[in-house]
Structure formats: C-alpha cells, structure tokens
C-alpha cells in the first residue's frame, strides 16, 4: 500500500529543490536568451564550497551563506569571462549554449580534479522525524523551509523592490526596459548573482540529501530544464508551479513504473519525456509567452 504521507513529503522535497534550481536558469534564459548549460556547475560548485567549509569544521547551515555567495560569484564570473564577451560579439543562442557547455565541462572537471570523482558526504546530523507516518530528515525539513523562505524572499524582491521591478520589466521586454531607462546591465548582474546563489544553496541541500559528486548538478540539469520549459521561460511563478508538477510526475510515475513491472531506473526519463513533449506541443510552457521564432 502506498504511504501517501511519504509520497507527499518526497514530492515536496523534490519539487522544492527543482524550484530553487530552476529560478536562476529560467530568468537567465529569458533575459539573455540562451540555454545555460553551465547552470549545473553553479549547483555543484555551491555544494563543494559548503563541503570544504564543512570539512574545516563549519556546520552545514552556516556554510549555506558562503555557498550562496560562492555560487553567485561563479555565475558572475561565467558571464564576465564567457557570456558577456560573446554577447558583445553578437553571438547567437546556439553559440552561447555551446560555450556554456564548454564552461560547464571546465568547471566540472576542475572540481573533480580538486575533490576527486568519488562520493563525498557532509558531516551532519542524521536526525529524522516522523510526521503522519512519513519519515523526514532534518536536512529535508531544511530544504522545504529554505525553499519556502527563498520563494517568498524572491517574490518580495520581484514585487516590492526597484530591482525586482526592473528584473520583471527586463524579463518581459528587454528592449523596452532599456528604452525606459532600466539599467539592464545591473539587472543581468543581479539575476546571475541571485539565480546562481540560490542554485548553489540548492546544490548543498541536494548533496546533503543524497551525496556529493562532481556530476551533482549535471545529473539534474535536464529535469531542471524541463521545469523551466514547462513553467514558461522567464516565468518565476511558472517555474515554481512546474517544479512541483514534475516532482509529482516523477514520484507518482515511479510508483506507476514499478506497478507496471518497468524499471524504476527510468525515473529521469519521466522529466525528459515531459521536456520533449513541452518543446513539441507547448514550447511557451504554462505561463510563458512565446520568445518568437517558434512558428516554423
């Protein structure tokens, strides 16, 4: 019999992580108009920074802030060294994407060189609680709490601050935003930093919940793209909703797979399938608007 409470908990955890990882990716995709494959390494880098601090004696939770800043800084570094120069040369979306694949490869394997390819883990409390028959670890509670806090914080930034409004304007219509006096460069910087930082923290949580390896970010990147596209490129709220939809699809899907006698190793394929279906049938996603060019 299915433990519904556990299922819900798992969905909350998966969805929360996806939401945190997708926010930065979706905004950059919209504003800079390219699929950033190096986003995976923002996730991984945050996790490893926390790992190093953890090994030095910091508790996992105090290293979260460092992970945030480190990943945010790496994101800005990516833009400064690779993406902005390409943008200035008028590079098209595919060129930026290819460059991001290259950048991701470099960072991933530098990390692998430093930390090794083997599994690493944090020193943390393995305490877990039981709620309505569902088991949830302390880390997992942290994930959900942080996700709610981060989503709220981001929402407030987007709606109450000047920067947030500038980000929304740039996301809707970059040319109009620029013409209206919005400092697009500042918006881009802020988006990289915030989006990257949150992804970095998500990386720490994911590594804490599973394990830390150099492909930590890469192994979730395609599902995160599925979230981005399902929610609509550039839609913050869309990404949140889509994250939980895909979490439901994955967790329920695994149950269905098992009952059908299919291998549960196909779990990632659920997100991949959603990704492909969205691209074919509704590329603008649930909440997005067409970026243009989809009409063939």
């Amino acid at each position, binding site marked *: 019999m299915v433990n519904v409470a556990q299922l819900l908990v798992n969905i909350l955890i998966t969805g929360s992580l996806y939401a945190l990882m997708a926010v930065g990716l979706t905004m950059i995709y919209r504003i800079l108009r390219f699929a950033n494959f190096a986003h995976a390494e923002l996730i991984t880098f945050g996790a490893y920074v926390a790992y190093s601090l953890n090994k030095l004696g910091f508790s996992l939770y105090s290293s979260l802030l460092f992970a945030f800043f480190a990943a945010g800084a790496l994101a800005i570094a990516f833009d400064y060294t690779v993406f902005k120069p390409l943008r200035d040369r008028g590079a098209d979306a595919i060129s930026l994407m290819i460059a991001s694949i290259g950048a991701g490869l470099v960072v991933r394997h530098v990390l692998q060189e430093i930390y090794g390819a083997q599994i690493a883990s944090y020193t943390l409390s393995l305490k877990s609680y039981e709620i309505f028959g569902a088991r949830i670890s302390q880390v997992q509670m942290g994930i959900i709490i942080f996700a709610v806090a981060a989503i709220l914080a981001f929402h407030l930034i987007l709606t109450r601050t000047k920067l947030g409004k500038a980000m929304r304007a740039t996301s809707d219509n970059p040319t109009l935003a620029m013409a209206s006096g919005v400092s697009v460069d500042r918006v881009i910087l802020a988006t990289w930093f915030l989006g990257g930082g949150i992804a970095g923290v998500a990386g720490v949580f994911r590594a804490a919940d599973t394990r830390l390896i150099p492909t930590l970010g890469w192994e979730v990147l395609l599902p995160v793209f599925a979230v981005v596209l399902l929610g609509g490129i550039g839609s913050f709220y869309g990404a949140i909703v889509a994250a939980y939809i895909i979490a439901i699809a994955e967790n329920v899907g695994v149950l269905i797979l098992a009952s059908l006698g299919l291998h549960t190793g196909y779990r990632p394929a659920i997100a991949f399938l959603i990704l492909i279906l969205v691209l074919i049938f509704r*590329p603008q996603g649930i909440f997005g608007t067409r970026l243009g060019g989809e009409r063939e």
Partner: protein
Amino acid sequence: MSTLLSYLVDTLIFINIFAILALSLNLEVGVTRLMNFGKVAFFAIGAYSSALVTLAGYPFWLGLLCGIVIAGITGFLVSIPALRLREDYLAIATIAFGEIIRLFLLNERWLTRGPIGLRGIPRPLKDVPMDYQTFYLLFSFAFLVVVFLFLHRVISSPFGRVLKAIREDELVAQSLGKNTFRFKAQAFVLGSSIASIAGSLFAHYLTFISPDMFMPTVTFAVWTMVVVGGRGNALGVVAGAALIQFMERTTRIMKDIADIGVEPVNLRMVLLGLLLILFIMYRPQGIFMEKKYEV
C-alpha cells in the same frame, strides 16, 4: 609490435571511427545547420545493434546493416517532431533523447545486459593472416574513405546545395519551391545511419561496450571536432577528429608513461571545454572554411 607503435595504431583507429562520426555530424550541423546534440544516441544504436546481432551468431555485415537500418528509422521518427523546433529547443530535445536511449540501454537488461555491458563481441575477419590491430586500422580506414566519398558526392550535389540553402535561409529556400522539411529529414536520417556505422566499428574494435560509454560527453566531443575542424569542410572535420582523438588517447595513456599531476580524464575534459569556448569566441567557423562553389 612495440607499445609505442601499438598506441599509434590504436589512436589512428579511433581517429577513423570518430572521423566518421564527426562527418555525420558535419552533414547535419555544418551543412544543414541542424542542431543535433543527440549524436551519441545513434552511435550507441550502431554499437549495440551490431554487437547483439553478431553475438547471436550472425556475420558482421548483417550487424552493420541492422544498425544502419535501426538508426535510420529512429532518426526518421525523431525528425518528425524535432525538425520543427527552434534551434536551441532542438538541441535540448536531442540531448534529452540521447539520455533516454542511454537509460534504455541501462534498464533493458534482458536485451543489453544493462550496466554490465556486452562482452566478447566477435571481431570481423578475425582469422585474417596479419596483425589484427593493423588490419583493423585498414578496415576502419576503408570505411572512412567510403563514407567520405559518399558524403562528398551528397554534399556537392544539388541535394547538398539545398541543404546549404536551408542553412543559410530556410524560408527563402521554401520560397524557391524546396520542401525543406523533407530535405532536413533526409539529412538527419543519413547522419544517423552514418553515425551507426561508426558505432559498429567502435563496438567490434573494443569487443566490449556498456551504456556509460555513451554519455552526452561523446556528443560534446564530436561537436568540438566539428567546431574546431571547420563546419562544412569535410577534411577540416576529419582533422578536428584527429586532433581531439589524439588528445583523448594521449591523455589516456599518459598515466602509464609519466605522472603529469592531474587525472587524465579531467585534463581531457578541461581541454575540450576550453577548445569549445575559445573557438566559439574567436574562430566560430573553425580552422578550415567551407569550400566555395565556383564555375
């Protein structure tokens, strides 16, 4: 044969195999501008089809043919929805497709033996009266020559010209009466079938294959060959394959020769990533440019 010579022949064989793979990608990317990032999937289809058929007792050429047909059909089925997509969406969709194929190979253990992989893949013409590795070098080179000439004919024909026109401006090509979807689909099917040939040669050389040899990094490596070598220039792409494969094989055996202080795989991947970034930034058309058609 001395180890150094053996290493050289080994590298050349891999160059032949990956040059075929790169040429197949060049047809799609360099000539037609189809952003296929799922190349490894068809490489895997060729490898596994060929391996399974020959392991069941059938001859090599039948395995090769099965791979070509399965890859071609798969390519066609993928092209129906995929070719209508915008460039970056096509890229993402094909990466996802490649991963689905890899998951299939991992999970359908009854067929592929899953993560364990397939061992003891029979070698074609194994009783040939010469050093087998040298034979395979000539064998794989023969395939490379045939593929090269075949693609040369295709690309320099009116068919190839339409592909280039589609690359340059698809709407204009349509406005001149070309059913661009049909042409793109044919290019994609051809590219997939040729990738399968490379896969078969790969499987029969290594005699052992497993799903983790068919990760997206293979696709990225082949893309690097095309980006570096020169999009639309076949010889350039072969040169690109040679360069990248030389880098690959050299870093692999480096460990045995000298201690370079870094793990070979990391050095390899960082170099690959840097090559991609540098070429996209400073020489996106690649080292060798496409030849101009003149009368």
